[in-house]
């Protein structure tokens, strides 16, 4: 039965991806893509990769959809959506053959792979040293902390890149439009009720993340979603991009991570955690990272400044 479910899910994923990429109508493609993110999260769930499923559920099914609808809206507002060209049939034939070849070669390579669970046993055997019950968190913040540190910096770099698209004269302004809602309407009520729930869920995910599925990225995404929702519902405005408080929130995670890394250099290597204090240090990094990731993601979705700031 399990395999039948998996086969149905895979068929659905491939079908939805084809509709999103090749179907008619851009808006329909976006709707299919939102569904696609959800189905991919279910695929990870079925593979028992709950940590990945959480990240994909929050990012793929939530935040990416909002980003793309925003881009669609910007094009639609300028009546720049059309045309949506399809390549010449000769291109399509050759592209189809080439992609079939690539897919086939990949499939052959996959079939030739030896089985096995890779490093699972090694991670489970050694994660006790870090006093962490969640193997994925142990890898993210223990064994491959370099990746995670650099990734938090990639996120910041992406935000700098987005901010570099600020129109002339608006630097220091506020991202996105000021949202309006009917004060007693459905949207305002929704925006009042959901963010607190999101806040609790986000804190829960980072708290649970050391021993159960969850962690800084999943929590940060849920927190960012709560922030974005409050802004969409008009309850709260985005901060000015030069706000010192905002800058502090953006930097605290990577800064703490770098600091721990630098201190660790004294203990025998960059990012070597002080012995006996591994877990408190990892938890501190996790909480700080969750906050920074939340702020960075929320502002990434908001885009570059669009309005002049307030009193300056």
């Amino acid at each position: 039965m399990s395999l039948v479910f998996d086969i149905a899910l895979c068929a659905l994923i491939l079908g939805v991806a084809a509709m999103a990429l090749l179907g008619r109508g851009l808006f329909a493609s976006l709707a299919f893509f939102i569904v696609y993110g959800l189905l991919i999260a279910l695929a990870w769930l079925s593979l028992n990769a709950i940590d990945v499923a959480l990240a994909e559920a929050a990012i793929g099914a939530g935040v990416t959809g909002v980003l793309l609808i925003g881009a669609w809206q910007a094009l639609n507002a300028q009546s720049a959506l059309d045309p949506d060209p399809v390549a010449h049939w000769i291109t399509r034939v050759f592209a189809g053959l080439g992609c079939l070849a690539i897919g086939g070669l990949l499939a052959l390579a996959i079939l030739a792979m030896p089985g096995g669970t890779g490093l699972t046993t090694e991670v489970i055997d050694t994660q006790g040293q870090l006093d962490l019950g969640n193997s994925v968190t142990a890898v993210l913040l223990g064994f491959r902390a370099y990746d995670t540190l650099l990734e938090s910096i990639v996120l910041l770099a992406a935000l700098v890149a987005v901010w570099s698209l600020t129109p002339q004269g608006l630097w220091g302004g506020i991202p996105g439009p000021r949202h309006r809602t009917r004060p007693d309407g459905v949207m305002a009520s929704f925006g009042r009720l959901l963010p607190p729930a999101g806040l609790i869920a986000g804190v829960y995910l980072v708290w649970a993340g050391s021993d159960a599925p969850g962690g800084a990225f999943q929590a940060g995404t849920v927190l960012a979603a709560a922030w974005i929702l409050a802004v969409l519902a008009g309850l709260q405005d985005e901060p000015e991009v030069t706000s010192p408080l905002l800058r502090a929130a953006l930097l605290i995670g990577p800064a703490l991570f770098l600091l721990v890394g630098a201190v660790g250099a004294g203990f025998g290597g960059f990012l070597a955690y002080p012995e006996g204090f591994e877990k408190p240090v990892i938890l501190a990094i996790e909480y700080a990272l969750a906050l920074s990731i939340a702020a960075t993601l929320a502002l990434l979705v908001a885009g570059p400044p669009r309005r002049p700031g307030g009193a300056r």
Partner: protein
Amino acid sequence: MTLIEILASACLAVGVFFFFAGTVGLLRFPDVHSRLHALTKADNLGLAFIVLGAGIHFGDVMIAAKLALVWFLAVFAAGAAAQLVARAALRTGDEP
């Protein structure tokens, strides 16, 4: 099969039935507003029965509380989304 298992299975069957009913409504109803009306109610009822079935299966109060929270959030989101999408559909008319 124990009584608990039969009860859980019955809940699941009813739940899946309502999901199908919602999809049939989405496919068969004539205009956008009646389609909205069909699917939000049927699907959330279906989800309620699935939550019930899973709750019976786990038989744990904390898990049942989490399931109830999930259901509440899903209903809330679906209700708000249906209302807002209906308004948006009124506003833009029936453009594709």
